[in-house]
């Protein structure tokens, strides 16, 4: 199953689109249940404070209000918000779903108001009186780790949640043998994921059935069901989680949130459906944020550009509490510190610290963009110090195609790759040599032209279970119904990636049926077998592989039934384009048999369609005696390794000398995500990823002031990429397959974001070379650049 078929490899337009473009899809807030109550939250206006009293009497008596819940009302009844990351000596503060005697970040939920409509619920929130005793606030992550800093969680006596040392190779020898050491401080600022659909939860508890259904905007319905069952003390099989249409996630919905458990609890108490839809202000303040790393990278280099070793000392800004994967994200940075290069020794020293802010967690790339950013910036810093072309420094350190599988000093085995080919293709597309000449000419005229290169590798298809906190496999079920229609149940939980189409392409090709005859179902724990979900560029590489194996099982069973119906051995039957036929040698024999058969004996069929076999399998009469009736199979696929997609992005910019504004003149991306099921979807993932990467480089930053107040609390202040601020992307692809899965797929969900950020920052730093600029902290706002040009 590695060659293109009728559908696989083709730019098929998406089967999920009609309902979306007609406005007929159902996101959480579009699901209406009779008698639903609405929930609004009172959230902390303080970053760190003791709650001395809460008075909810006025709120309880307000028109339309049904109930008000505070921390005391749920204490001991709803479990703590879980953290699945396991690290040595990790400090895990107990994270109540409603604040107890203290609040630790702006936006932390304190009380839930339940009312007959959302306006009344929101009105009553203002009637709750809370007395706060403000405490000293910890905002700066580096200061948080210092002795003498105010302590956030007193029970630990420190703000350091963990210290992690990782990496392999003789780092001291590397630095001793170096001709020089290049040192640079890098900041990966906090970002807000901003899925266009904020979070939302609708919970319905049926007291008779003792069953709780939670519709929630999530990327991980099954993992969430397990956690909700534990938090609410319900048997897991009495909890149903449904991820309906989900309006984007980017990692922010790969979590278990206080509100999800609380809504379930409230529905159980009131025996009525309850709904909460997050406002954008709540979303920026109380949905996980991404990145948040401040560190210093040191490279031991030879004068010819060879990198001997890397040392990264970093502080990770974890926020006040751990969400599901918070402490684990920087470990992914450690894994990817080798980038696309052969580096014999690598060492990371990571200090994860608590701060009085919302938790950081997985945001598109999740630890890998941070690694790629600092490596690719460092490659340019090395080039700058050695006065080499950044292209040459990269070429000097790439592993060659024949060196794969390639072991890194971070403990990984890169599966396959041809990094230099991707770089060369991108250079060719941009016309590199000519462009450098143009840059020289422009500089002579006083214009600031810059070229930025980023050659990335990312770790995808997460992942082998041994490397994951809660299983790294994925599941698929294939059913061929009596009428021949095909139902696919996937444990992945797509929310924009398009697997309803790409999985149907795989199934239709392997079964030889029409694409329109395949329905892909996902996101409902009462329909779909247990699955892990969609994140880490895993759904197609891992979930698609599970599908292939489930299809193979179904085909094998159908073949046995077909052989029985054709009165021959299984080995004599071939399956192609949806038809079971006799092998050539058998056809002649069968014809001879038929000629001699008596007139009263029915001639066995020489050809059967998969649909005919499916019907027979369900009728259960004409099937082999040792065969089960029905035609369905499930497969749980455990990958043996990660995959490692790669590519090179090149960005050309011009910086306005008067205003410091950055104009992107060209953006080239050559990506290799292995085999492609649907090039249209891959293009969409790359383009959207690039826009988010540009967002981090140029505009986006979550800003808390010195009091821990969120300054960028809504989209008026948090600047996202817009249609007129992003360039036209020029894309090309290579296909280096992997043997990690039979489809040869590597994954593409995060590549654009990972590749883009350093490309543009490298370009801007290059543009500012006449000013001797060596680094600029993101986001590259015009004012920052303007000041640099004047210093």
């Amino acid at each position, binding site marked *: 199953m590695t060659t293109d078929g009728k559908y696989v490899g083709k730019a098929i*337009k*998406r089967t*999920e*689109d*009609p309902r*979306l*473009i*007609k*406005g*007929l*899809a*159902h*996101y959480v*807030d*579009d699901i*209406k249940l009779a008698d639903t109550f609405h929930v609004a939250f009172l959230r902390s206006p303080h970053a760190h404070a003791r709650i001395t009293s809460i008075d909810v009497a006025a709120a309880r008596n307000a028109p339309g209000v049904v109930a008000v819940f505070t921390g005391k009302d749920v204490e001991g009844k709803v479990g703590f918000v879980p953290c699945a990351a396991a690290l040595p000596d990790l400090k895990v503060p107990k994270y109540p779903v409603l604040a107890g005697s203290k609040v630790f970040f702006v936006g932390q939920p304190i009380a839930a108001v339940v009312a007959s409509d959302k*306006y009344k619920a929101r009105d009553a929130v203002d009637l709750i009186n809370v007395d706060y005793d403000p405490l000293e606030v910890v905002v700066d992550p580096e200061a948080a780790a210092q002795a003498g800093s105010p302590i956030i969680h007193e029970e630990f006596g420190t703000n350091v949640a963990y210290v992690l040392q990782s990496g392999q190779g003789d780092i001291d020898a590397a630095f001793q043998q170096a001709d020089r050491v290049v040192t640079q401080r890098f900041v990966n600022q906090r970002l807000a994921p*901003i*899925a*266009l*659909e*904020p979070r939302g939860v609708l919970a319905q508890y049926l007291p008779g059935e003792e069953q709780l259904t939670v519709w929630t905007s999530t990327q991980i319905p099954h993992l969430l069901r397990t956690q909700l069952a534990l938090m609410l003390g319900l048997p897991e099989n009495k909890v149903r989680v449904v991820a309906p*249409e*989900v*309006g*984007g*996630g*980017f990692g922010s919905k790969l979590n278990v949130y206080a509100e999800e458990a609380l809504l379930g609890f409230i529905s159980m108490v009131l025996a009525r459906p309850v709904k909460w*839809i997050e*406002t*954008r*202000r709540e979303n920026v303040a109380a949905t996980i944020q991404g990145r948040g790393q401040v560190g210093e990278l040191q490279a031991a280099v030879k004068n010819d550009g060879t990198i001997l070793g890397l040392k990264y000392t970093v502080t990770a800004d974890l926020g006040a509490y751990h969400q599901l994967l918070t402490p684990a994200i920087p470990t992914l940075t450690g894994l990817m510190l080798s980038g696309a290069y052969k580096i014999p020794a690598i060492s990371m020293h990571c200090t994860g610290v608590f701060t009085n802010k919302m938790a950081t967690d997985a945001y598109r790339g999740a630890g890998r963009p941070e690694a790629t950013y600092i490596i690719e910036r460092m490659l340019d810093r090395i080039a700058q110090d050695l006065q080499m072309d950044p292209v040459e420094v990269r070429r000097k350190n790439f592993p060659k195609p024949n060196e794969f599988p390639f072991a890194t000093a971070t403990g990984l085995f890169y599966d396959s790759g041809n990094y230099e080919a991707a770089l060369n293709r991108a250079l060719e597309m941009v016309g590199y040599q000519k462009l450098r000449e143009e840059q020289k000419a422009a500089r002579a005229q006083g214009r600031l032209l810059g070229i930025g290169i980023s050659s990335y590798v990312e770790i995808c298809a997460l992942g082998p279970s041994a490397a994951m906190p809660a299983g790294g496999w994925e599941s698929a079920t294939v059913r061929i119904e009596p009428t021949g229609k095909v139902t696919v149940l996937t444990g992945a939980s797509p*929310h*924009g*990636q*398009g697997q309803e189409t790409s999985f149907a392409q795989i199934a239709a090709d392997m079964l030889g049926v029409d694409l329109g005859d395949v329905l892909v179902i996902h996101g409902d724990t009462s329909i779909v077998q247990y699955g892990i979900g969609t994140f880490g560029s895993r759904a197609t590489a891992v979930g698609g592989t599970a599908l292939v194996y489930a299809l193979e099982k179904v085909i094998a069973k159908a073949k046995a039934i077909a052989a029985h119906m054709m009165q021959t051995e299984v080995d004599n039957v071939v399956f192609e384009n949806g038809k079971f036929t006799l092998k050539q040698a058998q056809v002649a024999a069968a014809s001879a048999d038929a000629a001699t058969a008596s007139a009263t004996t029915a001639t066995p069929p020489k050809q059967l369609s998969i649909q005919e076999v499916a019907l027979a399998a369900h009728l259960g009469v004409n099937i082999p005696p040792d065969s089960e009736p029905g035609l369905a199979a499930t497969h749980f696929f455990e990958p043996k390794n990660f995959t490692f997609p790669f590519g090179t992005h090149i960005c050309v910019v011009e910086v306005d000398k008067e205003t410091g504004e950055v104009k992107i003149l060209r953006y080239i991306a050559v990506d290799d995500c292995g085999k492609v099921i649907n090039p*249209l*979807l891959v*293009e*969409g993932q790359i*383009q*959207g*990823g*690039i*826009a*988010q990467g540009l967002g981090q480089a140029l505009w986006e930053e979550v800003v808390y002031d010195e009091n821990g107040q969120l300054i960028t609390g*809504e*989209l*008026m202040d948090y600047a*996202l*990429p*817009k*249609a*007129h601020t*992003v360039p*036209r*992307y020029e894309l090309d692809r290579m296909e280096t397959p992997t043997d990690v899965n039979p489809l040869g797929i590597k994954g593409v969900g995060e590549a*654009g974001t990972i590749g883009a950020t350093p490309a543009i920052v490298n370009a801007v730093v290059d543009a500012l070379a006449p000013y001797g600029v060596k680094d600029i902290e993101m986001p590259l706002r015009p004012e920052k650049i303007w000041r640099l040009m004047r210093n």
Partner: protein
Amino acid sequence: MNISLTINGKKYEADVEPRLLLVHFIRDLAGLTGTHIGCETSICGACTVLLDGQAVKSCTLLAVQADGCELTTVEGLAADGQLHPVQEGFWEHHALQCGYCTPGMIMASCGLLTANPNPSEDEIRQGLEGNLCRCTGYQHIVEAVQYAAAKLKAQGAAAD
């Protein structure tokens, strides 16, 4: 307050609180949930509808301000089961992923093409600056609008 408005050709009358947002009237009273809410501050444009033919953001208009007006939402675009050329363009060019911004983006594109039937790429990008998409990186959206512009032009020529 008693108000009366027409949405997609159908008349709706209701007694509403003066503070009721137009988008909540559309979603909750008229039951048309294709119009989405993404920011409540007029920045993201997910709630864009046509008000007397003009693209407006329904999250920062009051329902009472639309009294007596004619609205078109995304549900009202496809005529007789035929997709509107803008909808068709979005499908053909993979101009949506999660789909949440899509209804607003489609309505804004309709407004844009009414005002400027022959937009350049730059004019499309400028014209959609009030609508955010976090998934696509906008390029396919630009191509979808270009497709729709060409199709609408061809339809206009055929009608002449």
